[in-house]
């Protein structure tokens, strides 16, 4: 299970760490299992104290200067980030 979750989460987990992590995860999930028994039929669809969710207007804003953004990585060329090969040639 841990390997599957790690793949979904894009984490590289060496085999020697997987058992320890699995034990921790299992213990937490077991402890949290009681939540599944909580009757929630009366739960309101719109909780009273939480503000309604709003989306930011879909309007283009001026972007950050490219040079400033690229300054946070060594891996860039021209105005682009450089990554290792994605597909085989």
């Amino acid at each position, binding site marked *: 299970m841990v390997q599957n979750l790690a793949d979904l989460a894009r*984490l590289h987990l060496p085999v020697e760490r997987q058992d320890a992590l699995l034990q921790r*995860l299992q213990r*937490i999930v077991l402890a*949290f299992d009681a939540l599944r028994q909580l009757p929630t039929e009366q739960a309101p669809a719109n909780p009273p104290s*939480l*503000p309604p969710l709003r989306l930011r207007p879909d309007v283009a804003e001026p972007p950050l200067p490219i040079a400033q953004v690229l300054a946070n*990585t060594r891996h860039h060329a021209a105005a682009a980030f450089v990554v290792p090969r*994605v597909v085989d040639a």
Partner: protein
Amino acid sequence: MTAIWQMSAAAITAAVRDGHLTAREVVTSCLERVHRIDPGLNAMVGERADVALAEAASIDERRQRGQTLGPLAGVPIAWKDNLVLEGELATAGSRMLEGFRSPYSATVLARLQRAGAILIGRTNMDEFGMGSSTETSAYGPTRNPFGRDLVPGGSSGGSAVAVAADFCPLALGSDTGGSVRQPAAMCGVSGLKPTYGLVSRYGLIAYASSLDCVGALARTAEDLALWLDAVAGADAADPTTVQAQGPVATHVAQRRDLAGLRIGLPQELNGPGLDAEVAAAVQRAVADLRELGAQVVECTLPAVAHAVPTYYLLATAEASSNLARYDGVRYGLRRDTVSRCEAMMMQSRSAGFGDEVQLRILLGTFALSFGYHDQYYGQATRARALLCSEFARAFASCDLLLSPTSPVPAFPIGSRIDDPLAMYLCDVMTVPPSLAGLPALSQPCGFTADGRPVGMQWVAPALREDLLLQVAHVFQAHTDHHLRRPLP
């Protein structure tokens, strides 16, 4: 005579305004204090001494020219390492973000600068806010000035220590499930988590976006009110923000007693499971509150029994999504030992994130995964809604709710770090108001026999920070717990 570094923000800004002190003298005094004390505490992870002194000099020049000064003119403030300031490092306590310099500023920091505050440096924190002890930081643990073998609480432990050790009168934290209030309690200072949306999250490195709040720590309620007035209110860059209800600092000292105030004690947060000395300190505070005229009644919030799993399932689910952006491509740590892009991302994330962050990403991924989503994430969402309803019912008969802030006082470094569940249970008091988006404040209410601070937590209806701060001020005016300093 009071040293400059012992002065409150209110006293500093009044003295700078009147010309009794220069902003440069204030900043110099606080930075000297940091340099003398912090090597034994590890609360600060970076400072901007030269820039801060230049900004202080600029404030002094403005005063000499007779120009208007902001409400926080000359007040040194430290900020948690997960708030970004243009041109400064911001790492969220993580190797993943080592070397990252922000190209823009968080709204809350920009507003403080506009108010005349001097931002002196960044404070240590649990990595990405994930911890209750400031032990998971890539910079190493922060130590509690009340006992250097003790944790300061977390995740804003560096900010709590910065105030407790008198590096500055105000420090910024972030509070997702108690990360301002719990370290405030463990370090003997006050901490405010505002109503969700009252303070902009723009520029706060995200952990769990539906819960994250920017908060502050200070020694007095008056200073917290000054901070809130400077930063609260709508921000076009954060669509979850709301309008402020008006200034609070001018009203903080209006109330002389607590006559007519109805304080509810939720049974679920004031019963079994509490450390005996914490329970006793809060009971003594309740007696003080009755003497001040408050009516104290018991109330009930049954869904609180499920608050810890509710919080951790929702927060980790949101974290697993928020932290997906760290892939080694655009900033931060990158492992270049592999030739394929996907492998580079996985290697970088595993090398950059610490154990607790990886555990929470996995837990969140599990809670959102096919076949389990409704049983865990969906059920936690419904439990959160139930809890919100219960708070609304409680506030129909009470003005404020009161509980301990933490079930235990500060514990020894290393004693819980290998037991995530024991650590998560430290948050049992603080996560309920976070889930409901309500404002909450922790303030000192006593000490254990061996001198560890105990905090109590006030919870108010949404946008009633004015009430929280007034009541905290009244309690401070009649007690001296907040005045005890751990270091000379």
